[in-house]
């Protein structure tokens, strides 16, 4: 039977419910009493790359941070709505956000390797401290696999015990990707992962994202339109209103949003008329 998962008029119609890995329903988020995003509903297709784009302050990062419940870790921050991960609402009172975050990994805007740890220790910090594995052999295998997936292994295999901070910015970011992959998540959230990197490192990460999409559901925030066009399968355009409350204007396959945007504001943004 063909069911159509449509949470809002902006959702991409996905033919089969099983194709949706992550599904946000009516997410609103606050910082204290300040509403940052209102009623955002988006479905993210399994093993694809979805991009959230829009001008600064439109709430795309805030929304991303609601998808793994890290938004609420800031003091005074709160969220309403639902996020369904394989059909289970991660905002259900019975769901532990700590456990949820092991299934939904995150890569941050600036590389944030743990400063006191070596390259190896960084990669295995997730499995080691979440209790996934403490066996040295297993950790070594996990580290190698994660580093290979992050296309970093060949560059660091002879210096795994060097400080993580001795790596270049681009390498540090791939280390952070490896660290996120080592806990074997299903979804990978990336918050402008290349905005602090040079063009060559950016290219490497973009190639990496395409490989990752074969095994992971990737959601990326970017204010770089070319990047969204290059790497994503689906793209959402978000915009803040007069009160700087962000919401989704349009969500469609990337090809369509860049060639035949439905909304005038999307077109204005894409053609560089603002933002």
């Amino acid at each position, binding site marked *: 039977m063909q069911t159509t998962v449509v949470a809002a008029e902006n959702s991409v119609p996905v033919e089969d419910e099983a194709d949706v890995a992550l599904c946000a329903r009516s997410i609103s988020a606050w910082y204290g009493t300040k509403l940052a995003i209102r009623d955002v509903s988006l479905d993210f297709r399994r093993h694809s790359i979805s991009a959230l784009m829009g001008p600064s302050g439109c709430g795309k990062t805030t929304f991303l941070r609601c998808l793994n419940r890290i938004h609420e870790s800031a003091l005074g921050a709160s969220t309403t709505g639902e996020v369904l991960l394989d059909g289970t609402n991660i905002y259900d009172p019975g769901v532990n956000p700590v456990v949820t975050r*092991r299934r939904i*990994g995150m890569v941050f805007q600036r590389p*944030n390797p*743990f*400063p*006191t740890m070596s390259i190896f220790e960084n990669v295995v*910090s997730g499995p080691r401290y*979440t209790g996934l594995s403490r066996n040295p052999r297993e950790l070594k295998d996990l580290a190698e696999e994660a580093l290979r997936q992050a296309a970093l292994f060949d560059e660091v295999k002879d210096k795994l015990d060097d400080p993580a901070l001795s790596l270049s910015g681009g390498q540090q970011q791939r280390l952070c990707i490896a660290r996120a992959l080592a*806990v074997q998540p299903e979804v990978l959230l990336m918050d402008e992962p290349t905005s602090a990197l040079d063009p060559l490192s950016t290219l490497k990460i973009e190639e990496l994202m395409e490989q990752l999409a074969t095994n992971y559901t990737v959601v990326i925030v970017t204010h770089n339109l070319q990047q969204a066009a290059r790497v994503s399968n689906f793209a959402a355009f978000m915009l803040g209103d007069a009160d700087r409350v962000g919401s989704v204007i349009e969500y469609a396959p990337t090809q369509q949003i860049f060639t035949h945007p439905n909304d005038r504001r999307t077109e204005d943004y894409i053609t560089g008329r603002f933002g």
Partner: protein
Amino acid sequence: MIAGSRLAASRRVSGIAGVVLTGFCSALAAGLLIVILGYVVVQGWSAINPAFVTQLPHPVGVSGGGVANGIVGTLIIVALATLMAVPVGVLTGLYLAIYGRGLPAECVRFLAEVLSGVPSIAIGLFAYTILVQPFRHFSGLSAAFAFAVLMLPLMIRTSEEAIRGVPTAIREGALALGLPDYGGVIHVVLPAARPLIVTGLLLAIARVTGETAPLLFTAFGSQFWEVNPGNPMAALAMQIFTYAISPYDDWHRQAWGGALLLILAVLVLNIGARWALRGRTKRS
């Protein structure tokens, strides 16, 4: 034109005067420290020999002897004080840096500031009242408690600053991996803050090592080997005090020797504090 050049000339003069004045004051401050250090070295050097740091005090009239029991007593008291001040100080700093907001946090911060201004003799008196009077005898432990109270405000402030200095992105990185909040704090945040916390600890130790007032009615002093902190204990700073106000030349010499030892210890602690921060000034 003339007015302009006169203005320029007067500016130049006041500029030179400023450099001279600040330079003079800096030289005065640094010079004073060097004079004090030099004087202590000159006076104390002759007292320092192997016997001075390995032997017990000799009775009045018998020359020689040392302050070994005072050195050991100071080490024990400071070590116990560190054991008490570090957990409380670091955990309070953690609360203030990460969890505390609003009135409760402000109260804790304010009280810590007030505590740092309380005269050490008052803290000694407090320790005397709660840890000496009830047990009816002096003890090294009561001195350690007084020292811990003295160290606490410094430990709280440096821990808070050190933990606050760890970027939120680092802590969120740990959360995003699925570490529980305390896991991130233990495995990621505290290790990143450790060099600054250690620096603060070393400076706090340096601060109390030379304290004498609280010892007078807590550790009390002893002429004997005493390593049991439940009993009255000798401490270097108090031996200096006793020797300095005595009428004997030999003891005066030993007082200077003890002062030199204390200054060297503080110097080593300060160098240690800098060493703990090595390489950090280059970054950021």
